């Protein structure tokens, strides 16, 4: 699950999950909840795939979210139905890209993911991630 937290100029996104796959999936879902109302794939939707590499989980999360954001901005799509697969040296992601004109209510532009306050931790039985996005 994800929630938003206060940051004066921008928006904080906090994600909690029992496993890492779900953590990354929820983080991407949370990111796109800032850009548009929830979307579902339609006739013009298409699958998209990314791969990000790295060892540090916080930087991996940064790259994961930045990559989806880049695709969304470049192609003017809203992404949903994220899938996560760990591969050697990183992770592979799949999602459905819905054209913005078919996405319903668009909320705000996210300019970028920031490094400020970025963290991914395994605390007890849960994974927790925090990231502040520039809007």
């Amino acid at each position, binding site marked *: 699950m994800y929630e938003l937290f206060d*940051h004066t*100029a*921008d928006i904080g996104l906090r994600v909690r999950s029992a496993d890492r796959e779900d953590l990354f999936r929820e983080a991407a879902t949370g990111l796109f909840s800032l850009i548009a109302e929830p979307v579902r794939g339609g006739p013009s939707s298409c699958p998209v795939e990314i791969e990000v590499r790295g060892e540090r989980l916080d930087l991996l999360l940064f790259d994961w979210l930045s990559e989806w954001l880049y695709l969304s901005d470049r192609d003017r799509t809203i992404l949903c139905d994220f899938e996560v697969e760990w591969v050697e040296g990183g992770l592979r992601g799949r999602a459905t890209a819905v054209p913005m004109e078919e996405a319903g209510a668009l909320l705000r532009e996210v300019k970028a993911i920031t490094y400020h306050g970025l963290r991914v931790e395994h605390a007890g039985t849960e994974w927790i991630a925090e990231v502040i996005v520039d809007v």
Partner: protein
Amino acid sequence: MGKQAYSGPLERVGEFVWRIPRSYKSGMRVDGLIYASEKLIEQIRHDQAPEQVANVAFLPGIQHASLAMPDIHWGYGFTIGGVCATDPEEGGVISPGGVGYDINCGVRLVRTRLSRSEVEPVLERLVDALYRRVPAGVGRGGAFRFDAKELCRLMAEGTRFLVGRGLASEADIAHTEAHGCLSGADPDLVSARAVERGAAQCGTLGSGNHFLEVQVVDEVCDEPAARTLGLAPDQVCVMIHSGSRGLGYQVCDDALRDLRGVPVKYGIQLPDAQLACAPVESPEGRRYLGAMCAAGNFAWCNRQLLMAQTRDVFAEVFGRSWSELGMSLVYDVAHNIAKHELHRIGGRERRVWVHRKGATRAFPPGHPEIPADYRAIGQPVLIPGDMGRASWVLVGQPGSMEQTFGTTCHGAGRAMSRTAALRASHGRRIDQELRERGVVARAQSWRGLAEEQPAAYKNVDDVVEVVHRAGLSRKVARMRPIGVIKG
């Protein structure tokens, strides 16, 4: 990481100056100095912005102090409203975080010969037409298309590139900071990804705090200066706030990725990864500067094209050409940028990199970089407030060169987080509340309006009063919004 109040030291060292001593944190190379009134400093303590002022003081080569203007608020890495100058001769660094993702985000003001009474009867139609014509919000592409070669020229030449297409004039260039072109631009250093993101966005407003406002000159504080700027009571103007769009965001993102591990390579200790930096005279530093300048030039073209579309809409609605309507550019300022400038430090002239992250250049009368027709009054400074109350026009003063590397504030500064503003708007219609104040607003989403509601901002009058009384810039005219376009 939630919002916590600042608990470190803040010593009053002047009527409007508060100091965070260098001794606060080991690693600070200079003091932090925040310009604020007693009222504003109480608000400023409420979040981590002062801590960020202290963190910026860690940057190698920083001169005088890590400075913050009265509209300071918590950002990422650098505070918003932060100013820092670094000297390359002392190992000074360049930090993309000190410029921000929206490289050369800035403001321009366009005057008209129209009075409030001429515009008000058609205001609704005018705002609707502006909203239809000027792309605002998520995913709205622009009307202008540039192929790869043209984009390269646009990034290298800045506003001048648009003159040949009839979209800019020599007068527009003369009244744009740096003549709308940073000379160090190297488009080859802008990634293909940045170009892909920006290609369709030149001439688009974006969302967040970006806006296009129809304003009325509400109060004139300095009649001779106002006359020089072509401003008079009751006159209608247009203020435009936008930046370098996806191209600039990607340039910053690319640079921060390029700088991963670089501070360690050069033995630089930083308290926040978002402060990542490189010596100006390093390959990494030079790469960022070349790309940053190119993105800055893109931003000036973006605001120029937003103005061109605005002029067209006014011409259609009022049935006269924009030149007949007197729609000249008053001035255009950058408020997220790093500039290589000459300043007097320690008794001698030194060329330093002034990072302005949510701060505006405010050169005093006589400065050679001010357009000839304004040189006697000082550089125009444009301070947007909020969409319900006011914005301001000021001019730079000698105090800015003596105290803040020729810099003043850039806006009202947020008083409320976006999430808190949304909570506070529950059950309310912000557009109707604005209408009751005499403001016609159009926006892509009600959330956008709610996050940007007037109460989310400090009172810009309080912020401007500080920079006016501290001698950084002088009040010329107060502008009141009557029409607002938001993303």
